[in-house]
C-alpha cells in the first residue's frame, strides 16, 4: 500500500547553524489494512517522516508510492501536493478549526476537497462519520466548546469522512489525560480495523505502540533501528537501544564466544547461552539482554544447570500487581519481576535460571547520534 524508499530529509540550519539531517535513509513498506506505528524518542524524525508522507514537507531525495502511484520521487522530479494525495490526518494539536461548528469541520473535506460530494450525500456522510465517533448529537456545537477528547474525535471524523487511502495519526493521544488515553487507544484501533483502512500511527510511547500496532518501526536519530511485530520487537530486540526503549531489561556486557542460534557469551556472571543475530562473530563485544520477567527461580537442585546462577536477594519492592526484586549475582545487580504471591525474603540465597531462548545477545552500542550535518 505504502512504499517508502531511501528517504533523506534535511532542514536548513537556522540562525547560522548547520543544516540538520532529520531523516537519513529511511525505507519501509506498509501492507494494505495494517496498523503501522512509527515509534521512537522525541526528535528522532517520526513527525518528519509522517509529514513527508502527507506532502506537508518534501524530502531531499527518495521515493514515496501509495497504492502503486508515485507521490514523490526525487529521480523523476515529481511531487504530488498534499491536497491531491487523498489522505486523512489527525494532528497532535487536533487542529480542529475554532471558527466552525463540529459539522462544518467534518464537512470540510467533502465541501472543499477534491472528492466533493453533493449536498445531500455530504450531509449523510458527515452525520455517519459523527455517529462513528459518537458525536452525533454535537453536530451544531461550535468547535471551541468541546473538551479535548471530543475535539480529538472531531479530528478523527474529519480525517475519515472522505474515505482516504491512508490515515495518518501524529501522537493523537499525547494530549489526553491518562484514563481517556486508555479508552481511546482501543477505540481508535477498533475503529480503523473495522473500516479496514491502512493507518500510520506516530508515538513515543512504547506501551501505546505495542498495544495498538500490527507492525512497529522503531526509529532513532533519523534512522530505522528495527522493524517487526510488537512481539518480535519486545522479545527479540536487535540492539541495546531497542531493548532499553521497549521496557526494562537486564543488560549484561560480555564477549561473544560462539555465534548463531545457540550462541554463548562470556560475562562477569560466567558463560551465558542465548540467541544471537547472524551478523555477530565470535570475539565481538556484546550485551546479553534478559527481561526481568524472563528469569526463573530454579529449585536448588538445578544449581549446576545451563544458565543457572546463585543469587542473593537484596531488595523487594511490592508494587501491587508485581513484585520487583533486586538480586546480586557475583557483584552484578539484576532486576526480576515476580508474581505478587511469591514468598521470598530479603537476604535469601536463590538459584536463578535464565532460559537460553530468553537471553538475546546483541552487539554493544555503536555510538550514533542525531546532530548537525557535516
Amino acid at each position, binding site marked *: 500500500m505504502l512504499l517508502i524508499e531511501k528517504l*533523506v530529509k*534535511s532542514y*536548513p540550519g537556522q540562525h547560522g547553524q548547520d*543544516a540538520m*539531517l532529520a531523516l*537519513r535513509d529511511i525505507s519501509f513498506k506498509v501492507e494494505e489494512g495494517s496498523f503501522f506505528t512509527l515509534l521512537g524518542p522525541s526528535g528522532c524524525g517520526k513527525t518528519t517522516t509522517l509529514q513527508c508522507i*502527507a*506532502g*506537508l514537507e*518534501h524530502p*531531499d*531525495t527518495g521515493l514515496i508510492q501509495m497504492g502503486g502511484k508515485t507521490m514523490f520521487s*526525487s529521480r523523476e*522530479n*515529481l*511531487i*504530488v*501536493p*498534499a*491536497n*491531491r*494525495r*487523498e*489522505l*486523512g*490526518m489527525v*494532528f*497532535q*494539536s487536533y*487542529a480542529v*478549526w*475554532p*471558527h466552525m461548528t463540529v459539522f462544518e469541520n467534518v464537512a*470540510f*473535506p467533502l465541501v*472543499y*476537497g*477534491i*472528492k466533493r460530494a453533493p449536498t445531500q450525500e455530504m450531509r449523510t456522510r458527515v452525520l455517519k462519520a459523527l455517529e462513528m465517533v459518537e458525536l452525533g448529537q454535537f453536530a451544531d456545537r461550535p468547535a471551541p466548546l468541546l473538551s479535548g477528547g471530543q475535539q480529538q474525535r472531531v*479530528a478523527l471524523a*474529519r*480525517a475519515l469522512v*472522505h474515505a482516504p487511502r491512508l490515515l*495518518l495519526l501524529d501522537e493523537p493521544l499525547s494530549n489526553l489525560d491518562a484514563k481517556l488515553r486508555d479508552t481511546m487507544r482501543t477505540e481508535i484501533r477498533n475503529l480503523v480495523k473495522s473500516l479496514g483502512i491502512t493507518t500510520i500511527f506516530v508515538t513515543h510511547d512504547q506501551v501505546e505502540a505495542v498495544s495498538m500496532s500490527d507492525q512497529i518501526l522503531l526509529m532513532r536519530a533519523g534512522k530505522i533501528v528495527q522493524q517487526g511485530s510488537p512481539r518480535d520487537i519486545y522479545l527479540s530486540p536487535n540492539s541495546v537501544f531497542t531493548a532499553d526503549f521497549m521496557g526494562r531489561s537486564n543488560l549484561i556486557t560480555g564477549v561473544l564466544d560462539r555465534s548463531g542460534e545457540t550462541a554463548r557469551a562470556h560475562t562477569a556472571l560466567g558463560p551465558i547461552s542465548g540467541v544471537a543475530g547472524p551478523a555477530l562473530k565470535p570475539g565481538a563485544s556484546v550485551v546479553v539482554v534478559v527481561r526481568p520477567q524472563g528469569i526463573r527461580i530454579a529449585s536448588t537442585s538445578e544449581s549446576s544447570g545451563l544458565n543457572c546462577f546463585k543469587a542473593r536477594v537484596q531488595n523487594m519492592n511490592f508494587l501491587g500487581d508485581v513484585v520487583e526484586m533486586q538480586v546480586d549475582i557475583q557483584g552484578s545487580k539484576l532486576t526480576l519481576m515476580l508474581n505478587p504471591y511469591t514468598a521470598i525474603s530479603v537476604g535469601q540465597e536463590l538459584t536463578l535460571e535464565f532460559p537460553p531462548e530468553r537471553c538475546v545477545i546483541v552487539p554493544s552500542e555503536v555510538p550514533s547520534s542525531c546532530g548537525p*550535518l*557535516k
Partner: protein
Amino acid sequence: MNGPTVTSNGRPGTGLDQQKLVQSLLLVVVSVLVLGPVLVLIRTSLAPSEAMPFETLDFTLKHYAQLLQSPRTISLMWNTVVYALSSMTIGVAIATAIAWCTERTDMPGRTIVRILMFAWMMVPALVIGFGWILLLNPGNGALNVLFRELFGYLQPILTIYSFWSLIIITSFAVVPTGFVMISGLLRNMDPNLELAARVHGGSSWATLTRVTLPVLTPGLFSIGIYMFMAVVQAFDLPLIIGLSADVPVLSTRVYLLSSPDNGLPNYGLAASFGVLLLVLAAGLMWAYMRAIRLGERFRVVTGKAYRPKRITLGLWRFAAIGFTFSYCAAMMLPLLILLWVSLLPHYSTPSLSAFGGLSFDTYRRLLTNPMISRAIGNTIILVISSATIVMLISCLIGWFTVRSNSRAGKILDALSFLPMAIPPIVLVLAILLLYLNTPLYGTIWILVLGHMTIYISFGVRTMSSALIQLHKELGDAALISGASWLTSLQKVTFPLVWPQILNGWLWVFAHSARDLTVPLMLMTTSNIVAASTLWNLWQFPDLPGAAALAMLLMTALLAVVVPSQLYVSSRLER
C-alpha cells in the same frame, strides 16, 4: 558533506503552482512599489537638472556637491535633529508619566484617559496644528486676544510661529502613540520586581526611580528611537508651523524644492536631499532594530496575565490628575476652537456676543460645493482601496514570511520592510518622478499607490505577528482535507486572524485619511481628497470652511474607527 545534496525548497512539481504564481506576483508588485521609486530617486539625484531622469544617460554629482557645500545644509540637519530630539524627549516624558499613572496607580478617571488617547491617535496632526494656529497666532490668536483683554498686554504673550511652539505642539501630537506603546510596555512588566522593592523597604519614589525606570529603560529607549524616527519623517506640522516660523527641516526642504511657490521644481536637488533624509532614516531604523534586539535580551516579561497591585497615590493624586488634565485640556483646546470657528460665517475670536451667530451654514455650504463632494468621494475611494489592497497584499506576504522558508519568502519580507526606513516625503517625491509622465499621474490611483507603499510594512508586520501565533497545523489540516492552498487560506487561515486583519485595515484606513504628504505632493485638480482640500481652504484662506471640513473628517474617522476597534478588542480578549 557526504550525504545527499540539499536541494532548494522550490522544486518544480505539479500543483505548487498556485503558491508559486502568487509568490511571483507579490514579488513583482512589491518590487515595483518599493524598489522602483528608490532607484528613480537615486537616479534623479545623479542626473543633470536640465533633463528628466529617464531622458538622459549622463551622471553628475553636481547636486551632492551643491548640497554639501551649502552652509544651509548644516543648519537644516541641525534643525531636523534638534526638532526631532526635543519633540521626542518631551513627548516620551509626558507619555511615560500619563501611562504610569493609568497603568500603575489608582488615579481616578483612568479609563477615560485611555479612551481619549486612542481617539486622539486618529486625529490628524494637521487638524491639531490648525487649531493651535487659531489659538496662538500673534495677530488674532484666541488665547492671545484673551490675555490682551484680561491683562492689557500689548505684545502677544505666546506665538505659534517659533521653533519652541513647533516642538511643543509636535510633542503633544506624538504623546497618544507614545502612550499606547508605553502602557503596553508597563502592562508586560513583571510586577513582582516592584513588589520585591517595596517589601524590602523601598519607598514609592525609590521604587519608581531605582526599579521601575531602570527595568523599563531598554523598552523606553527603543520607543524613543521610534518616535525620533517618526518626527524626522514628519511633514505636516513642519509645513504649516515651521515654514512660517522660518524653521525649515529636511522634509519641508524636499517639498519646497519639488513644489516651489514660484519657479521650476529642482528635482535633482530635491532628490539628493531625499537621499540624505533616506540615509538618516535608515540609520535610525538600524539603531531601532538594534535597540529592540538588546531590549529582548533584558526582557523581564512574564507573559502571563496578572492583576498588578496599583500604587495608592494619596494626596499625590491631585498632582497626577492635574498633570493629566492639563495635557487633555491642551489637546481639547485646538479642537474646540476649530469647532467654534466652523460654526461662524466669518472668523472671529470666541466671545459671548458671537454666540448668537452660531449656525451650521458653513457645513451646509461645504456639503453643497461640488469640489468638496468630489474630494469626499475621492477620499472614500482612497481610504477604502488603500486599506483593502494593503491588507490583502499583507496577508499573503505575511503568510510567506511566516510559513515559507524559501529565499523568495525572505526577499518579500525584506522588501516589504524597506518602506519603514523611507520617509514618506521622499517616497512621494520618488513616486512623482516615476509616474509624472504616465496616465496614472493626476488620478486618485496614484495616491492609492503611494499609501500602499507607505503602509505595507505596517500591514505585513501586523499580519506576520498574527500568523506566527496561529498553529501551523490548522492550515495543514485544510490541505490534507484536499483543499487547494488558496482555499485553505480563504476558509481557514485568514478567517482565524480576522480581528488582526480588521485592526490593520482600520489603522491603514485612518492613516490614509489623515495623511497630507501624499495628496499634497501629488495634487492635481482631479485627485483632491479631504486632507489636500483642507490645506487648500486654509491657504485660500477660508478658515470656517477649513475648520468645518476638519471637524467632518475627524468625526467620520472617529465614528468608523473607535466603535470597530472597541468591538475588535472585546473579541480579542475573549
